């Protein structure tokens, strides 16, 4: 009975993992298909990889500029969000309560409402989309609240006396901020940064409403592809190769995290 329960339990977990990974695995297998169409397997080949890694072609350039955008957005969001979180944490209860509530609005709000309300502001003020400013601010709007949400718990866990001690020992408030508070909340800051990168990479709707016409992110590029046209099918197939590479990366990360955890427990035992 206990055995059966255990089998059922892990069968469920396995089934859900299968549901999550099968589509990605399916694309990975097809990335070696010589044909641009999934329905007909015409033989094993590296064609899609060759197309993807050719800098003359669009996909790799778009992947590059999407990554660059994500890193820039994440950097800005992390700085703004960390400063904001420290400020909110030390504000009076009413101020911090109000700011925390407003901070939750973009988190809970539907992306499309955030996007159109922001786009309305952009057209109201008359900012030119080709300056990239709307895209940058729009994606920061998406990411910064999450940075705040990941930094505030770390501030709560922090020992507050250390900051006072640093001031008593003659450190300037700025110096105390950078050498006492920041190191203690660093894990939260790093988490916020990584989360911002993934949110920016994943975003379609905000980018679609705020990006310059000539600029594409991975999301907007794939969404706009017409697979009935030969070029569209080819580009789409190149993205299968990209998916396969990310999949490989995932596998490596999971193995690495496993090995690290294993080493940690072993060194503890010693």
């Amino acid at each position: 009975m206990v055995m059966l329960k255990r089998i059922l339990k892990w069968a469920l977990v396995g089934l859900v993992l299968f549901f999550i990974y099968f589509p990605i695995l399916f694309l990975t297998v097809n990335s070696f298909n010589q044909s641009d169409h999934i329905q007909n397997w015409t033989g094993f080949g590296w064609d899609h990889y060759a197309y993807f890694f050719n800098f003359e072609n669009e996909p790799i350039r778009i992947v590059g500029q999407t990554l660059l955008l994500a890193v820039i957005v994440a950097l800005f969001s992390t700085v703004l969000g960390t400063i904001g979180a420290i400020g909110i944490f030390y504000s009076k209860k009413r101020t911090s309560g109000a700011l925390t509530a407003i901070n939750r609005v973009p988190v809970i709000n539907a992306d499309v409402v955030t996007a159109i309300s922001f786009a309305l502001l952009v057209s109201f003020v008359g900012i030119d989309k080709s300056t990239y400013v709307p895209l940058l601010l729009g994606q920061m709007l998406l990411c910064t609240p999450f940075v705040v949400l990941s930094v505030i718990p770390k501030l709560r866990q922090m020992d507050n006396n250390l900051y006072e001690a640093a001031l008593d020992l003659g450190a300037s408030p700025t110096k105390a901020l950078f050498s006492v508070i920041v190191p203690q909340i660093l894990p939260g800051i790093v988490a916020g940064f990584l989360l911002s990168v993934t949110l920016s990479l994943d975003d379609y709707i905000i980018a679609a409403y705020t990006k310059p016409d000539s600029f594409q992110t991975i999301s907007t590029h794939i969404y706009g592809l017409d697979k009935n046209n030969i070029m569209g099918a080819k580009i789409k197939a190149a993205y299968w190769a990209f998916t396969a590479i990310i999949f490989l990366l995932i596998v490596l990360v999971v193995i690495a995290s496993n090995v690290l955890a294993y080493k940690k427990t072993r060194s503890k035992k010693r």
Partner: protein
Amino acid sequence: MTETKTKFHFSRKLLAIPYALFLAAFVVIPLLIVVYYAFTDDAGKFTWEYVRVFFNESGEGLLGFFQSYNFKTIMRSLFISTMSTIICLLIAYPVAYIIAHCKLKNKSTLLLLFIVPMWVNFVLRINALKELFVWLGIYNKSEAWNIVNTIIGMVYDFLPFMILPIYTTIIKIDKSYLEAAKDLGATPAKAFLKVTLPLSKSGIVSGVSMVFLPSMTNYVVSNYLTFRNVKIIGKLIDDYFTGDLWHDGSFIALILLLFMFLVTWLTGGFEADEQTNARGTSLW
């Protein structure tokens, strides 16, 4: 920086100012503009026109509203998002529970397995699902399949957002409560219903709020997995805006916004504990 220090007394509170300004400029003001557009015409004059158009599209009064395109879209969205949320919850809760209670040393690696697929770009993931549907032959013109495909897509996309917050609340439950329940003679089922389930409520609420609204509005999923024939409320707003009908679009966005505020207020989401936040702020 040195100047501010000498002139004013530096206080950490002041650090809130730049972000407060950011929130005011890019969250509060845009929402006010949405309200403004919903109730004004092109000349900027106050009007009920777009409210009237929305409820009385067919010109048959309020009764006609229940047969209108807008009403049908809202109902379809509600159906899709309710189904997606329920399925997500039914899958996520047992999974989160099993991981939290398993005897493995590194549970976080197991949890990681459910989260890392999010590193594959969202449109690519949906594309993968679509290619699979084509291969399975369920990507076809039948309306029932299109709705089913949309729901599968929403579940596929938002499942991690449900697993994470539930897992974080279950893992935090003090094990001694369960032992106490056991000692006092509760069956495992009863202990679960009286201890674990109530204590993981905040995780469920947070997960539901991360799935329900997005699966009503994420039109990329519904467009991509169907022949663009399953319209959900997010697409309705998008259609109005790409068709330059900003006022009509704003009114629908306003309805969605009010709905969001209502749900959040009812579930106490505005003062919710950050720890239960989904999208993995606590995972990294």
